[in-house]
């Protein structure tokens, strides 16, 4: 299905997630990278080498979820913008999805936006909790979207209210 629509099927998405225990424990990176392409910058971007070293640059990335601290440095380093950090228990009511974002203008912290799923459909609202756009991110900003907990597994993008 991924090959026909650009949207990964449920099985692929599930396989990219850590266990529920790990998800509930704290922020963790997930890689929605499902096809073998020549690409390895993620391995070099992790400050604690939680990603397995590539034997072949076409390998799919393997993340050790227990080592991963959810720092998010990998997000801006993925050329495919396929890495997200999920923080299921950001607060009692909310989860946070940190998404790579390369559009302008960047949203304001506190702004309410429309939350989009992998098909670009509006699935609810999100609050922009934080916007990271440091120089070392080389113009790939990372936007923290506060969403309801169930939506942590579906929200992967956002758009402005007036769009």
């Amino acid at each position: 299905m991924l090959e026909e629509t650009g949207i990964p099927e449920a099985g692929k998405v599930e396989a990219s997630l850590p266990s529920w225990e790990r998800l509930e424990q704290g922020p963790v990176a997930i890689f929605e990278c499902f096809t073998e392409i020549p690409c390895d910058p993620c391995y070099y971007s992790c400050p604690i080498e939680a990603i397995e070293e590539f034997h072949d640059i076409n390998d799919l990335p393997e993340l050790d979820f227990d080592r991963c601290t959810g720092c998010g440095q990998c997000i801006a380093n993925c050329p495919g913008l396929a890495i997200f950090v999920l923080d299921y228990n950001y607060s009692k009511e909310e989860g946070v999805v940190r998404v790579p974002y390369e559009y302008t203008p960047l949203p304001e912290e506190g702004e309410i936006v429309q939350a989009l799923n992998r098909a670009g459909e509006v699935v609810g609202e999100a609050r922009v909790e934080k916007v990271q756009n440091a120089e070392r991110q080389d113009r790939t900003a990372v936007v923290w979207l506060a969403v309801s907990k169930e939506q942590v597994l579906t929200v992967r993008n956002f758009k402005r209210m007036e769009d």
Partner: protein
Amino acid sequence: MQKCELAIVGGGPAGLAAALKAREVGLEEIYLLERDNFLGGQLVKQTHQFFGSHKQFAGIRGIDIAEKFKDKLEDRPEIKALKGAVAQGYYEDDVLGYSYRDKFFKLKPEKTILATGASEKMLSFPNNDLPGIYGAGAVQTLMNQYGIVPGEKILMIGAGNIGLIVAYQLLQAGIEVKAVIEATGRIGGYAVHASKIRRAGIPILTYHTIKEARGNEEVEAVVIQQLDEDWQTVPGTEQEMAVDTICLAVGLTPKVDLAIQANCQMAYVAELGGDVPVRDKNLQTSNPRVYIAGDSAGIEEATAAILEGELAAAGAAADILPEGSAIDRERAEIKEKLADLRRGPVGEHIRRGLTRVRRNQNAGRDRYTRSWKS
């Protein structure tokens, strides 16, 4: 008559990498002829982070890679990089003629590397000549090089990497992309590129093709329709869409005019984009003075072009410089990196194409054979 050790035609990623490698291994008289007023070729429009190996610019944006190459050239006076120098012909006695600042020059290089890139393919449909119908590369040029809005509502035809990437770049420029249509049943480009535009709300319609463009003086609308698995149009599935720009990302054709003039044996290899020169593993063509690298050797992408440029330069240098094993080791390393790049599933059609062209095995015939060729 000018003379030099190495002439490189084309200042894109392959040509630039070739020039720098040639200097690195010891050549001292290198001409780089670039027809445009800027160096970098297609790199200067690539705003996205590159894939490939970390050791080969992965994670760096194409535009920045171009800058890195240009910076390195500054310190190397042995490389004469002429911007606005248009190669006009490769003559029988291995003379390269080029025009530069309204004058014509004759250059006799010991070796020539052709790195002239590719041109965009066209699609046949009624009114395909209307203003507003552009190649995807053209849209990239307008947006990323000149900062011009190509249109307000775009239809992208082709879901290979170029179609998907340019659709994304259109979004980044604030332009609406109505849809990406793809004639086959699958998205040919990397899934991550497709996912990026799907989550931005751009539909990707597989098994769809363009029926016709509509408009008086410019594109005003397009009619798309469905195809079945046998490439036959499905009646009754026509859909009209109001667009002002149609972007064709339907493939590239290697630019090989100079190779043909240089008497290189050619072969038609569909996997590489069309007619390409037959060459050995070191990228030397059947004319021992001529090497080929980059998209003009076969449609691939920038990282491969860079590596091929280096390989061709090492090959050309090995013939010019006195005996030395250092170059052989260099070549082996470069070939390994190319193999790494091409090893995975997405490299399959390239590998197939390369096997055909190298051994001239199952490659289509040479359509340029002339009777006086020995």
